[in-house]
């Protein structure tokens, strides 16, 4: 991941993760990354590892919480879920969100539908 990309993406990626968790319920890192990839229709070419930076940031702000559990295919995985504070933040940012780039707009609409 190049430095520039991370700068651009940092804020938007955080919000995408939040929205994904809001829409999908508890998910592990892999699940979140897959979901964002699917919804963005591969428009976002990111290393999946990138979302872990987002997850740490969101954890630190207590907008999400994490706990170890068992995945669908019986693997141990850390599951993240959105917190009350996270939902509040998400709503507050929603208006802002509308104004940012077309890609994220599409992600939002698709995520709602899904």
């Amino acid at each position, binding site marked *: *991941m190049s430095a520039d990309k991370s700068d651009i993406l940092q804020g938007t990626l955080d919000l995408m993760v939040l929205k994904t968790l809001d829409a999908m319920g508890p998910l*592990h*890192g*892999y699940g979140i*990354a897959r979901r964002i990839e699917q919804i963005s229709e591969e428009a976002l070419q990111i*290393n*999946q*590892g*990138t979302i*872990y*930076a987002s997850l*740490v*940031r969101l*954890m*630190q*702000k*207590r907008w999400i919480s994490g706990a170890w559990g068992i*995945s669908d*295919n019986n*693997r*141990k*995985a*850390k599951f993240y879920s959105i917190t009350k504070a996270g939902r509040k933040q998400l709503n507050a940012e929603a208006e802002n969100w509308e104004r940012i780039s077309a890609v994220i707009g599409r992600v939002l609409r698709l995520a709602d539908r899904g």
Partner: protein
Amino acid sequence: MLTWIRTLASRTRTWLSPREVDRDFANELDSHLYMLTDENIRRGMQPEEARRAARIKLGGVTQLKETNRELRGLPFIETFLQDARYAFRMLRKNPGFTAVAVLTLALGIGANTAIFSVVYAVLLKPLPYANPNQLVSAFQANTQEGVPETGTSYPNFEEWRAQNHVFSELATIDFHQLTLTGLGDPSEVNTCVVTPEHFAVLDVKPLQGRIFFPEDGKRGAPPVVIVSENLWRGTLGADPKILGSSIILDKRPFTVIGIMPASFRSPFINSKPEVWIPLVQDPLFGSWMARRGGHWLAVFGRLKPGVSIAQAQAEMDAISERLASEFPAENKGWTVRLVPMQKEIVGDVRTALLVLLGAVGLVLLIACANIANLLLTRATSRSKEIAVRTALGAGRSRIIRQLLSETAVLGLLGGVIGIALAYWGVRALSSLLPDNLPRVNAIRVDNFVLIFALVLSAIASAVFGLVPALFASKLDIQSSLREGSGRSGESGNRRRARSFLAAAEIALAMVLLVAAGLLLRSFSKLTSVSPGFEPQHIVKAEVSLPQFQYSKPQQWTAFSDELLAHIQAQPGLQNSAIAIPVPIVDGFINLGFEIEGAPPKSSTESRTADYASVSPEYFHVMGIPLLSGRLFNQQDIATAPPVTLISKTMAQRYFPNQDPIGKRLSFGFPPNPGIPREIVGIVGDVRDTSLGDAPGPMMYVPYAQAPFWGADLVVKSTLGTSAVTVAIRQEVQKIDKDLPVTDVGKLPDLLDASVSQQRFRTLLLGLFAAMALILAATGIFGVISYSVSCRTNEIGIRVALGASRAAILRMILRETLLLTFAGLLVGIPCALVASHLIGHMLFGVSANDPVTLAAVASTLTAVATLAGFIPARRAMLVDPMVALRHE
């Protein structure tokens, strides 16, 4: 805000248990990889390929872990601590380098901190009174007569006080000494003579008792006194019942009503005040209170809240206009000038202190250049280490951060030692500081000064650290890794940077050396200038007569006649005289005069001359030559026709092309102004204001015709000072046992003390210039030695090919001189600018003084050559066999 705190809390928590969190994240990434691999296998990849693809999809695991660690911990503190630990290790491994760098920096920081503590105390620290910004000094000024600022009279002061609406209170202060008797030996006490509002204006509370009430300032009020804590604890023996009892000042009892804390100082008074008395009770100034024409009261006041000094000035302008029309005889042409009290107290010391601060700042700059040079050299030898770090994935900013941490550690060490040096330096400075420097008692290394020192060392380390760090981080990894030792391959850029720094050091040193050289030459001219009299072997002592006992001029004359007769009767003391004032030592008295029969003076011309009242022997004792006419003699007594002697300058200025002898001047010092006096002779010029001021017109009168309530004895004797002093004391006390003899001193010492400010700044600037010279020499030495060691190979080849040793020496010295000349080329114009800035401090030398410039340039060249010669000699002695094997 809340989010921010949450983040910090979370970061701190994870920072405290890093292993656990690391493991957790590693597990998480593992699980992610498994899931990715599972998916890839589901899509039909072979397991091996699926794992590879998963790794690519996820991104570099090590990098992810590193990012994670940085994000969740406290990376700044963490990496700084790590870097600092590493830096300490590196510094310990190079004790020589560390010692030189730290010591250089410590000297720079120490000197700066010490000077700053003086600047802070004298110029910046608020005055030690409540709301000091409201305090203002008020002067009278007369542009027509060229008087920029002087005191006022008591009647005027009363009008100012009554008529203004801008001051919450106005007060006055004057200062002299009174004789304290009844407690052991008679002594002189420093006396502040004030109007009752003095303490109220300054808003201070007494330690015990009360401050003056307005009634204490009324005529006929009982005499009261406020004493200082020091006098109370000392001479008064900390008497607990002192309040209400009385002390004897000038033979009059004063009731003690209060004690002021030791920390309290009255403004404008540099001596420690010991007692305060109301103006109306003062034996000297009290008798002047009724006269409106005088200019002797120092007035200050506190502005009402919200009133600006400009508003106050406007009001005072209106009042002084009213006074001028109401009392034209005394007030015509006189205006009032308001000056913030702080500015007034600091006066002209400001420039000198700022020059010193600038000078010491340059020293620090040179020190920084020196350390930067050392670091550059070291960075070169560490280029391999840095290349390895870069290759292992450290970013440029990370490398810079690490190198800066090292310099920060250096800076911190230098700062700490520098502060220790500053403590010592301030103590050393205190003994050097001229007595007449205002606010000296406030000088110390306090918190503000400490913060200054720390900030300074931080800035300094950023300055000397950034340049090498930027160079080091721009390293070409490939070539650095390939070069074995990383020794011979120095980039041209870096060598240029080093040469630039060394040349800059020379230039800066040049500026300081020229300034110091000019001040030194000024000072030597100043101290060797002839004052117009011969101070050798002259002892001076002051006797003041208490006004209440000695109230009539006849008594003053009788006393001085008797005293002089007694002293001259002593063996070895025949050569004695009485004078008021003694030139330079006592300051000067300037009086206006009229020439009888001369056309009235034009409005621009001012006829004033300095005045002295002396006994007939004075000219002989002081060695002032008689140029024509006669000196005073024993017949020039009070009842004889008044006579005067004038100086050569006065004769030339006011009697060009004529013989002044026989003409009459009218002038006089109170109580007899405007007496016509016949000029009986012309004597040599005397510098009476200061050694640095050219002699002005001067007129003398016989002491018997113009006595004073006290006078100086001047005794020329080859006996020792103490023998003379004892003899004077004995004779004075034979006449009146309650009279103290004060201000005893040898005239040469007193003249010396009169140039203490000049000596102080010359000494300090000289010291700083010497530091600059040494630092610059070290800088040159460092650059040339390094260059020689880099070129060992090349030199070996040259020698092997037949270059003579002299040629090698010449080559290296040429490099040295090139650096030096580059430095001088830049330094000379800078030095000229600097020397013009200090132009007003110079005496007898021009700011462009070619002698100083040439001397400094050649000194610098010589020192630089010497510094370059040591490595050059090493180069000359290089054994080609060894050199060629040298890598």
